[in-house]
């Protein structure tokens, strides 16, 4: 548990803000796929902490980034934090995406909506720590809903689908033409459940290993309350401790 200081809070979109936080203490090591639990002050209707995935971890600057989608009172209150404000976080929590050992592997990172957030940290980690060139496939309703594109482009090639066709291929991420042209060795995905299920269906049909990041509603975030469970081959397990990242062959999804 750390009291962290907000260094920046930037509106990236009418529905998203990017919070950057630092600490006087050296931050613990963090891995892509992990998340934090934020205690939200100044929001009387927000009782529980809010789980937010780690968007980026800057080791040199001792900084962690949280991409927050403003969907309820808690996340809207987070968007009102100002530089210099203190925010209490539990971090880092959960498991992480598995990192390939072979540099020549072609990894596809598919993000939809706020599910794009952990893909930035993962892409950076793959490139810097594993020497793997990531390919991003980002899906959104429209061009204006694509955020952090410049950051993604610094790390690898960025492919896009939009539902209205305003940029990239028209349709959903699974409609992108790359999927019929290139065979990836590994797929990582985070986003709305129907999107992740469609990605999982594609991965299974092509026999490509696939990891998904789940966002089941949770209370404690540390495996105590047993609220966020997912049905797996091992029975009900906590998404907060045994996830949020799962290989799809461990899940009981009807795909």
């Amino acid at each position, binding site marked *: *548990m750390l009291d962290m200081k907000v260094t920046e809070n930037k509106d990236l979109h009418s529905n998203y803000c990017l919070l950057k936080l630092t600490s006087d203490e050296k931050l613990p090591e963090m891995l892509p796929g992990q998340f934090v639990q934020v*205690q939200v002050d100044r929001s009387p209707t927000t009782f529980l902490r809010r789980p937010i995935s780690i968007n980026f971890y800057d080791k040199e600057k001792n900084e962690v980034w949280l991409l927050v989608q403003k969907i309820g009172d808690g996340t809207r209150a987070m968007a009102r934090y100002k530089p210099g404000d203190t925010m209490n976080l539990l971090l880092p929590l959960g498991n992480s995406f598995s990192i390939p050992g072979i540099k020549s592997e072609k990894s596809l990172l598919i993000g939809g909506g706020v599910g794009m957030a952990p893909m930035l940290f993962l892409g950076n980690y793959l490139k810097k720590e594993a020497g793997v060139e990531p390919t991003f496939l980002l899906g959104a309703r429209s061009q204006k809903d694509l955020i952090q594109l410049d950051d993604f482009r610094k790390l690898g090639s960025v492919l896009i689908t939009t539902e209205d066709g305003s940029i990239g291929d028209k349709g959903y991420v699974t409609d992108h033409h790359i999927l019929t042209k290139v065979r990836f060795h590994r797929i990582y995905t985070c986003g709305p459940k129907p999107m992740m299920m469609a990605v999982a269906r594609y991965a299974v049909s092509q026999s490509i290993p696939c990891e998904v990041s789940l966002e*089941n509603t949770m209370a404690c975030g540390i495996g*105590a*309350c047993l609220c966020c469970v997912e049905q797996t081959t091992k029975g009900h397990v906590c998404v907060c401790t045994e996830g949020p990242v799962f290989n799809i062959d461990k899940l009981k999804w009807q795909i």
Partner: protein
Amino acid sequence: MADLRVNIGNLPLKNPVMTASGTFGYGTEYADFMDIERLGGIFVKGTTIEHREGNPYPRMAETPAGMLNAVGLQNKGADYFVDHIYPKIKDYNTHMIVNVSGSSIESYVECAEKIAALEQIPAIELNISCPNVKQGGMAFGVTCAGAAEVVRAVRKVYPKVLIVKLSPNVTDITEIAKAVETEGADAVSLINTLLGMAIDPMKRKPILSTITGGLSGPCVKPIALRMVWQTYKAVKIPIIGLGGISNWKDAVEFMLAGATAIQVGTYNFIDPTASVKIINGLNAYCDQFGFKSVSELTGALEV
């Protein structure tokens, strides 16, 4: 420095602050955040004789100043606890107390017998008040006859400290408390969660897979406090108070209302170190008001 020691029956606690079953795992989950050995005791997750997968997801709904849960006693069963969990937790320098649940008199008895054999578990908390399982659980805790029957049966096989956790979902909690006292319970803990419900108006569907669930958190505190006060006047055995305790002031209030000790529950999810802060706060409170022993607070409400 006040004397923080209290006794639950013949079980001495180093201080009155414990953590509530289902909110603190097996203690180990919190060891990264605090020194769990500072606690007076840890009530570990509800244990049943059989392995239980619990209720389907979704199991949780946030409410104003609280939450509803419908976990449904997910646990790997008493044998798993004995073989795999007990060895890891038995040497902690605090009391590990097992919350025992069942779906029939026989299953309560069988589970209590298995736990009784564990040398370093000095007490059990008999859960006759879980609102989230179809059979048993709360069914025993909402009638005097049911509560008496299960306590009588478990008392025969369980010689150590027997704490009975009471349900608030009753007309008069003092009648149930008296019934379990008569059957030989050493203490009562109250309250378990209040039966509640949450609806998603956009989907026109219940939020919980079970439709109803147990309400906990600061929102239930006034009800819990009132029930502790009423029960204090009705029974002679010690009361362990819980329900929405989030800081030392809440803990003091429960003790003034008649609790000998308290449990911190849902608030562990908000601040994993809340229980340690409460121990420190209780000590400071006693010093400030000249109480040499925290036990002087029990029932000291001036009315």
